[in-house]
């Protein structure tokens, strides 16, 4: 006897040890998952790195630009020669007579304009990385495209796609060269004279700043499209990648962001952002790959970002470095020059300047938007796209989906659990419970698929009937219940024993049949244009086929077994002595359940709801298919949503490892993880309180 007991005890200990080991392994795995997510999100917090990569003397140069090959660059000397470094290879500029008075490139280094002894020449620059044996060298070609002699003038800006467009100051007015004819056209620009200018990539328009005004100028017609007053005198101007945002640097140290919006027949200029700084702005350079730009002030170089409206990094500079600020074409370096010809090279690692707490959770005024808003739209067709990473619509979408799922499955699950555990016979209960739990085994892909392709179109067609049925069913059931209460006691008991289930089912069927027959008659009578049109015209509610109602229903279908199961468990665990005591004191069964059993099991019921909510928030496939994935800011049941989980599933395959989108999606995953953890912990704590409460009663 004692031996057998000892054996059992040993087995117990062994099992306990094994379970503890597995449990701690699970904990370790969860913790590692958490660490992994944190590691992937962490780089979002790092600021960009600019490192001084050395300085070198080039002698007196008019122009210098970094080349395609990292570490390479070319310079333009006063004698009118282009020199490539390293290597020292010279590229002749046809027709240029020494000395060169002025030279400019467009923002991306595709056009070179030179004002020299004989006049003005524009060149098409093509740079290429070539192999010379095993070494890579920068090759540069400059093809003369146009030559003209405009006389005494100052070149302000270059641009154009196929043909060059040059803008210069001619006395007090503007002179513009378009195409390859070589003739300059005078365009009258009212007082004061233009100071700085930048030409849009396509060459049709230019942004021109005079001492006190900023002007959007139509180069084709030579007219002013729009203008805005300036508070400080401009020193530098540029357009960010995509040509939508104009950045203007001023003498008072401010950098302002401008955008042109169509307004009626014309355009208006609006200032949509401002950076302040201590010393005058000397130069600006747009990034060739995103919406970042560099600001050069006396003694400091700053990297700023349009989306976050923040200066992400700063580095000190020699006081005299005040010109030739350019990004390298592949965004890995930056070049700054001193008047003496000394050049400074910086290595740049931009990181994720567009992702900040402000852009993730706050309202941002994006390019093309008239007001700040929360927007999720991560990907575009080119680098000129301004990524929009607001998590707010996604978080709202997750909550919305889970809310509508709970609206359907919460009451149904709890009531079903109460009915099953307290009112059904032991035998029926033995059938109902496993069947409901079997529902949990239906793959969510299938549920989502059916919801999206069968349910959604059907609901859209019959929405009025469904709403009607939702009114009829409870109405009919409650009325019937009141009637049954009036029956004599023996009849009532017989009814409850034999006919209740059948009658309830019949009533529900009757309600559905009633709304199906009444609906088509009532709808045209009540709403002549159709119910959905009425909704839209009267309340501005738009109905989308893939909406929260459908997705919530499908999602509720998926979480219903969980809620039912946990709640039923909690109710069944209420000690029968409590119920019996209430019954023996004369309470009806319904009364005893409502006042004794349900309050006693309340923590368990709450835990069921919490766990259901947690599961609904994390569920992916159903919402992915049935919700439409629309990242909108609306809680309407008739519109769709995009949840965090569905968004991760849809976009993660597209996100290249390490880019901003990838890290933001990892952040979304981290948020989901933390949320699920919190909900589950809360559920556990609540459930534990239940067992603590009745620990002594059994």
């Amino acid at each position: 006897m004692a031996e057998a007991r000892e054996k059992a005890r040993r087995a117990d200990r062994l099992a306990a040890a094994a379970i503890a080991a597995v449990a701690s392994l699970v904990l370790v795995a969860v913790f590692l998952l958490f660490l992994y997510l944190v590691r992937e999100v962490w780089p979002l917090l790092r600021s960009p790195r600019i490192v001084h990569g050395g300085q070198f003397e080039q002698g007196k140069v008019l122009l210098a630009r970094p080349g395609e090959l990292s570490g390479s660059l070319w310079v333009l000397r006063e004698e009118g020669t282009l020199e490539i470094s390293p290597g020292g290879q010279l590229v002749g500029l046809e027709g240029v007579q020494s000395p060169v008075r002025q030279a400019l490139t467009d923002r991306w280094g595709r056009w070179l304009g030179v004002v020299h002894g004989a006049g003005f020449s524009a060149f098409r620059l093509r740079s290429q990385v070539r192999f010379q044996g095993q070494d890579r060298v920068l090759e540069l070609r400059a093809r003369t495209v146009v030559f003209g002699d405009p006389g005494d003038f100052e070149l302000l800006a270059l641009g154009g796609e196929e043909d060059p467009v040059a803008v210069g100051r001619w006395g007090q007015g503007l002179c513009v060269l378009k195409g390859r004819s070589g003739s300059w056209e005078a365009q009258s620009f009212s007082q004061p004279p233009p100071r700085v200018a930048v030409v849009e990539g396509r060459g049709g328009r230019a942004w021109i700043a005079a001492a006190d005004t900023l002007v959007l100028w139509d180069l084709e017609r030579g007219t002013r499209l729009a203008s805005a007053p300036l508070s400080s005198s401009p020193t530098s101007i540029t357009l960010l990648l995509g040509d939508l945002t104009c950045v203007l640097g001023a003498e008072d140290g401010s950098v302002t962001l401008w955008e042109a919006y169509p307004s009626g027949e014309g355009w208006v200029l609006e200032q949509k952002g401002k950076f302040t700084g201590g010393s005058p702005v000397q130069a600006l350079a747009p990034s060739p790959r995103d919406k970042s730009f560099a600001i050069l002030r006396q003694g400091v170089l700053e990297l700023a970002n349009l989306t976050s409206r923040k200066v992400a990094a700063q580095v000190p500079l020699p006081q005299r470095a005040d010109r030739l600020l350019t990004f390298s074409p592949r965004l890995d370096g930056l070049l700054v020059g001193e008047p003496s010809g000394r050049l400074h090279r910086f290595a740049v690692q931009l990181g994720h300047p567009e992702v900040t707490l402000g852009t993730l959770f706050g309202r941002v005024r994006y390019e093309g938007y008239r007001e700040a808003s929360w927007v999720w739209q991560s990907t575009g067709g080119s680098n000129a796209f301004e990524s929009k990473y607001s998590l707010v619509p996604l978080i709202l979408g997750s909550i919305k989906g889970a809310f509508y799922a709970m609206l359907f499955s919460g009451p149904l699950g709890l009531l079903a659990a109460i009915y099953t555990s307290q009112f059904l016979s032991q035998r029926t209960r033995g059938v109902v419970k496993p069947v409901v739990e079997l529902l949990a085994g239906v793959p969510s892909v299938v549920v989502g698929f059916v919801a999206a392709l069968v349910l959604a179109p059907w609901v859209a067609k019959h929405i009025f009937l469904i709403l009607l049925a939702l009114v009829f069913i409870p109405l009919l059931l409650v009325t019937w219940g009141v009637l049954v209460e009036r029956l004599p006691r023996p009849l009532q008991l017989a009814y409850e024993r034999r006919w209740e289930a059948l009658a309830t089912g019949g009533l529900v069927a009757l309600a559905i049949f009633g709304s199906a027959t009444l609906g088509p008659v009532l709808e045209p009578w009540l709403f002549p244009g159709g119910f959905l049109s009425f909704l839209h015209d009267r309340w501005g509610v738009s109905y989308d086929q893939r909406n929260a109602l459908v997705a919530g229903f499908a999602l509720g279908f998926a979480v219903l077994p969980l809620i039912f199961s946990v709640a039923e468990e909690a109710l069944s665990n209420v000690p029968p002595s409590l119920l019996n005591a209430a019954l023996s004191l004369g309470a009806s069964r319904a009364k005893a359940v409502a006042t004794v059993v349900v309050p006693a099991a309340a923590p368990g019921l709450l835990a069921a709801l919490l766990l259901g909510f947690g599961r609904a928030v994390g569920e992916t496939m159903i919402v992915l298919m049935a919700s439409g994935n629309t990242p909108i800011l609306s809680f309407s049941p008739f519109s769709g949503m995009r949840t965090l989980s569905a968004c991760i599933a849809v976009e993660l395959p597209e996100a290249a490892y390490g880019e901003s989108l990838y890290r933001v999606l990892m952040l979304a995953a981290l948020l989901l993880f933390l949320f699920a953890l919190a909900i589950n912990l809360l559920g556990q704590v609540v459930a534990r309180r239940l067992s603590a409460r009745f620990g002594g009663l059994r």
Partner: protein
Amino acid sequence: MKGLKVFAGLAGSVVAGTLAAQVVQVDPRIPEYVPTRQVAGNLNSVGSDTMNNLMTLWAEAFRKLHPGVRVQVEGKGSSTAPPALIAGTAQLGPMSRAMKDSEVDAIVAKYGFEPTEIASALDVLAVYVHQDNPLAALSLPEVDAIFSKTRRLGYGKDITTWGQLGLTGAWAGKRISLYGRNSASGTYGFFKEHALGGGDFKDQVKEQPGSASVVQGVSEDLYGIGYSGVGYKTSGVRALPLAKKLGDPAYEPNYENAITWKYPLARYLYIYVVQDPRKPMDPLVEEFLRFVLSQQGQEVVIKDGYLPLPFSVVEKELAKLRR
């Protein structure tokens, strides 16, 4: 992600290639593929899911001629191609859009030269409406105003109802219901660049995880409109003729209009390879690409519901291989 594939697969099986019904023929001037040498070994392809079927069909046909070749095709999205080319896990990177500058940068940073871009087939994006929709045609600025909140193409007003497009009667007051692809696809990026002028989609566009499910969505939604490859067309939807500008003539999305670029939403499907300009091309890759650009290869394109390349393009692409 498995579920996504199942979904796309299920929806795809409902749809039959209807483009095959149109008589599209490969230009007879395109050379037949004749194997000049026997090649063997492993050929890995990682990239576009749009081109997944196409790559598999090419691979099967190619293996008949070169039994010693094993081809593995993985299609998870165009953006997966550049990382695979960089890591060297794939020799072929099929993409349904051109590489972005930043992706080219990454390849240059690793190899020191730019990737070689080979156009392999022609695809036409169609704007679909429900088959009972009476709308005759659209112009790109109108498409922009329907799908976009930024309206870069210059249409003055937002379009939200069918009445604003000139439909009358019961249609006039009905709201337009928008369907589109998810941002993981090259289709999404191409449409954004060319139909929205680089602007933003409305938040109300219902993003579908597969090309077929966009068509499915529109065919089940009387007031729906969506964009997807023309190869996914079903009898439940109608592909609208499109015009480049307001007032221009609209063109049907068919082969003739695609190769003359009259229809504004035609695009190439590319295969990218990393080819060191100092070295001859890997014979396995070269033979495969020659096969793709041959009479037989282009017939496979038609079989899969896409459009074959015109002769002039094939010539140009073949020249890239000979370089």
